[in-house]
């Protein structure tokens, strides 16, 4: 029987990441933020007053949230060609919201 071989993108190689598209980064970063949140929430429950953990929690929640909004907008019919712009806006919005909330420090 003839050999059958199918190439798959190897995530372990640099070349596979060389041209990773914006939509892929958006997806990956949102998942990574979710995984990070699990760890940060566990730390936060142990000591709710640790400032670095608070910062991480706020940052990850915002990042995960705005990337989720981006997905929802695309789901509801915003053109997929805008996804790079939406990713950029999501990152900027998350950073701006983080800066505002952190500076405000209402508690």
């Amino acid at each position, binding site marked *: 029987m*003839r*050999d*059958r*071989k*199918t*190439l*798959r*993108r190897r995530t372990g190689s640099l*070349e*596979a*990441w*060389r*041209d990773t*598209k*914006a*939509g*892929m980064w*958006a*997806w990956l970063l949102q998942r990574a933020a979710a995984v990070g949140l699990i760890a940060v929430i566990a730390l936060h429950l142990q000591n709710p007053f640790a400032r670095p953990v608070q910062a991480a929690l706020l940052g990850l929640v915002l990042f995960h949230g705005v990337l989720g909004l981006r*997905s929802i907008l*695309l*789901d*509801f*019919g915003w*053109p*997929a*060609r805008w*996804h790079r712009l939406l990713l950029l806006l999501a990152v900027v919005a998350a950073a701006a919201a983080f800066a505002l909330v952190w500076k405000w420090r209402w508690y």
Partner: protein
Amino acid sequence: MVLKVFRWGPGTRERLQKYWVRARQGMTVLDALVEVQRNSDPTLAFRYACRVGMCGSCGMVINGRERWACRTLLSGLPRGAVTVRPLYNFPLIRDLVVDMTPLKSKVLAVKAVFVPARRAAEDAGFAQVGSGSRERRAIDGGIECIGCGMCVSACTMVGHDPRFPGPAALNRVFTLQRDSRDGAHAERGGLLLGEDVLARCHGQGNCTDVCPMEISPTDSILALRRRAVLRLLGFQR
């Protein structure tokens, strides 16, 4: 310049083989491959036909991205060696040549073929969809697919789930589901709700980014998904 070309054949080990090519002005990756084949290695296998960016048969992964070799200028790539691989997610035949059969089998798996709603004899001539109609405008982009397979290669979910039909087949389904002359909407609608079909797309947009015809299969899939949700909620047949 240096070309690093993927080589593999049945019974041999895969490797990246280096070739030196004198880059000329206006030279494309396809030109470079042809030069290698003619002047230094006639055993190098790759596929092409029109050479002018119409047929899509020279789709390859160039520097990590799916592109058509005939439209990719060497001068447009970053300095350094250019790596050329065959499309991902397709069975290899040899070197840069892949077997495109999965493209067809995925199309058939989701019944992405036209099924006339009425028999031809019942129509007084060909059924028509006006070029300016809303129905036609909705699928204008989608019908330009040339079946090059680059979207299937770029899609991470095709690589992850072999049962996922992939962007090309689902884009074709979209054009049919919006076609009033087609009579298989309900049947396809049921298939689309399967676990490995619409729900499997994660909207990463890789297919849209690499499509040489600037089609957006992501938009087609998301539109199908909205229709599927309406169908589930009973708002649409």
